[in-house]
């Protein structure tokens, strides 16, 4: 450090640093210019295929399909990669950008619209026609969910799901509520029907007083009759859609890809008003208390006697230690029928895949009776192919749950299609915020009329 370094030298050094920095910048800048151009892919018939999925429970069944497929098609090999749902979509997006997207991947109905409109996934219409695939063999509604706004099909449906009530058998029998009673509950937005009676009776405060008994202390509840996961956002798939759906209300003016939302509808808002009223009555926890562990953990802790949840969670609930649960169908509503949101997952082909020919063979196989019966036999999802539905139901029944609670919606055609729209992420973000406010009583359900204008406005963008 004894070296004297005059100011001029230091300045010259820094100037040189700047010069070399600029040189590197120009180099990286030029390299960065290629961004934005997607590879067009090719129709290779053979080679290696990468297949992505997010549900680890389903990997063994699909691995079995892949092995069988490789045996039939020795020129094609399948590599299955699984990533958790929360990472899945970010990873998929970056892989599209980096031109390293999986050839085939499990797609969600709320996501594919964005990919289709950007030309990232293949339109399957011609392929379906060329190979004479009978689309009527799939459960009603599954194919409709995979037709984008442009009318083309962007995925081969692989499974479907509906919603039902999971309840604690022990708590129900302690309360003297039979499975028959749970299976025939009715609901209306005025007095809540027998659904509200059951919820009230299953609610117990810390002194052991039930929700419908004298002296019930709603500020100190031990077990809530009905659990709550979140405000449901714009879909309310497992929260309010099974109620609002019985009033004749629909999400949009069309089953899918409508031009207007119906959150300003009186029927919707009155269903929400009744639903959040359960919080005031002490039968359902305030929204603030629901941030934390999953619904299933709270069922396990007997904090809730009943919850509404989707078919994809059947195995999660079946495996819970220390509690005995069962399922019941959602209540019969205003129109004298039940209702449930209906959704379907599908396999999509990346437009950038080099082996789209092989990818189509694999997708075709995934939705074929062969693979679908393997999947049905694993008892993890309801397969999209109607013919193998009974096998899946039998497997599911081994959990001891009343599986009809889920299938009744398909049998009786009481399903409401999961709403598909442009700008779905943005719209759901706005709706989640608005519904959070309604559920936490900072705004009234009527405030959703204004929000409806905003979200409908986002459809044209």
């Amino acid at each position, binding site marked *: 450090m004894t070296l004297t370094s005059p100011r001029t030298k230091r300045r010259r050094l820094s100037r040189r640093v700047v010069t070399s920095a600029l040189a590197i*910048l120009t180099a990286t800048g030029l390299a960065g210019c290629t961004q934005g151009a997607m590879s067009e892919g090719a129709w290779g018939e053979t080679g290696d295929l990468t297949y992505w999925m997010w549900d680890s429970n389903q990997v063994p069944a699909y691995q079995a399909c892949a092995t069988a497929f490789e045996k039939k098609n020795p020129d094609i090999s399948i590599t299955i990669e699984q990533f958790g749902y929360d990472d899945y979509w970010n990873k998929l997006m970056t892989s599209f950008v980096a031109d390293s997207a999986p050839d085939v991947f499990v797609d969600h109905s709320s996501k594919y619209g964005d990919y289709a409109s950007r030309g990232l996934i293949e339109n399957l219409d011609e392929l379906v026609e060329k190979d004479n695939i009978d689309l009527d063999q799939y459960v009603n509604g599954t194919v409709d969910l995979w037709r984008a706004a442009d009318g083309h099909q962007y995925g081969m449906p692989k499974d479907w799901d509906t919603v039902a009530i999971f309840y604690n058998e022990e708590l129900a029998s302690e309360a003297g509520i039979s499975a028959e009673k749970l299976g025939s509950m009715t609901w209306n937005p005025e007095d809540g029907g027998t659904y509200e009676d059951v919820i009230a009776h299953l609610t117990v405060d810390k002194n052991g007083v039930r929700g419908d008994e004298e002296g019930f202390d709603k500020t100190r509840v031990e077990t809530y009759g009905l659990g709550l996961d979140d405000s449901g956002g714009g879909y309310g798939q497992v929260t309010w859609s099974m109620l609002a759906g019985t009033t004749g209300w629909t999400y949009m003016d069309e089953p899918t890809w409508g031009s207007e939302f119906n959150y300003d509808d009186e029927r919707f808002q009155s269903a929400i008003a009744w639903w959040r009223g359960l919080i005031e009555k002490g039968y359902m926890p305030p929204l*603030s208390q629901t941030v934390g562990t999953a619904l299933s953990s709270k069922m396990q*802790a007997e904090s809730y006697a009943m919850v509404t949840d989707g078919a994809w969670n059947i195995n999660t609930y079946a495996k819970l230690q220390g509690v005995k649960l069962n399922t019941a169908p959602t209540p019969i509503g205003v129109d004298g029928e039940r209702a449930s949101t209906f959704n379907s997952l599908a396999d999509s082909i990346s437009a950038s895949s080099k082996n789209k020919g092989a990818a189509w063979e694999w997708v075709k196989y995934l939705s074929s009776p062969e693979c679908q019966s393997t999947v049905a036999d694993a008892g993890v999802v309801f397969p999209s192919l109607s013919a193998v539905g009974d096998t899946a139901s039998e497997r599911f029944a081994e959990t001891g749950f009343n599986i009809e609670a889920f299938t009744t919606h398909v049998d009786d055609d009481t399903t409401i299609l999961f709403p598909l729209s442009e700008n779905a992420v943005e719209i759901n973000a706005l709706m989640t915020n608005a519904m959070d406010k309604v559920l*936490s009583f900072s705004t009234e359900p009527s405030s959703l009329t204004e929000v409806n204008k905003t979200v409908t406005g986002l459809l044209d963008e």
Partner: protein
Amino acid sequence: MATVLLPEATPSTPAQPTASARSNRRRATRRQTWTALAFIAPSLLGFVVFYFWPTLRGIYLSFTDFDVFTDPVWVGLDNYTRLFGDETFWNSARVTVQYVLINITLQTILALALAVLIHRVTQSTFLRSVVVAPYLVANVVVALVWFWMLDYQIGIVNQGIEWLGGNAIAFFGDESWAIPTIALVNTWRHVGYTALLIFAGLQMIPKEVYEAARTEGANEWKMFWKITVPLLRPVLALVLVITMIGSFQVFDTVAVTTSGGPADATRVVQYYIFDLAFQRLDFGYASAVSVMLLLVLAVIAFIQLRLTRANESDLN
């Protein structure tokens, strides 16, 4: 390296440098410059590739409409105009400032107290290393463990509160509790590390100063205010700047617990940026929000360094 080169560079008669000696020295300095550059190059490359270039590109993107899949479209100041009218952004700014105030105040005071304690009271390496233990656990793990412990219905903390006769608190779910809770969780994780930084500063204060003070009859309290705090000022300033910048960038704790809810009560700026860019594919606008954050942080760091005279020490 410089000292190794030194003998060559030093002229034989320093008082009257000859012409050859001067050119010798110039050559030597040039060689030193190259050596220095060679040493700086790796980190410079990293800096340019991973920080400088992304920053420039981010600034450029903030003037565009960009969804990653198609080429950016120049929109001028549109994103910035939108930003000034964006209620969610201003809310996220308020939420972030609230977080930083709670986090930094508490963290700095506790860390200072902790550092003085481990400096003045104990010599045990074990105790000194225990305070950094929380920092060794990954952020996401810390957040998740606290998330479960603070759960309203089945969390151990609320069980404890109820056992003591109190009412359970919706730590992450209540709009007024959520940000303080997240600030406290992060304080718990970072306080030991901050204490360690301050502790390093404490060790630089000469022991004689304390001995002299004690001879004069000063007690520990007086010595803390008259010696420790003033002499620690440059280190404290640096620690404040670093922790505050880190604090403004709070993200992971929010991402794994509340995801910005309930009703935007924890939608901190960094999470809003992530949400805009990676969930809504609005990279242009997200970049504009990032640039705003960058400007705010630069101004804050500048003011802090000025106010605390971080580049001067009272030691000499």
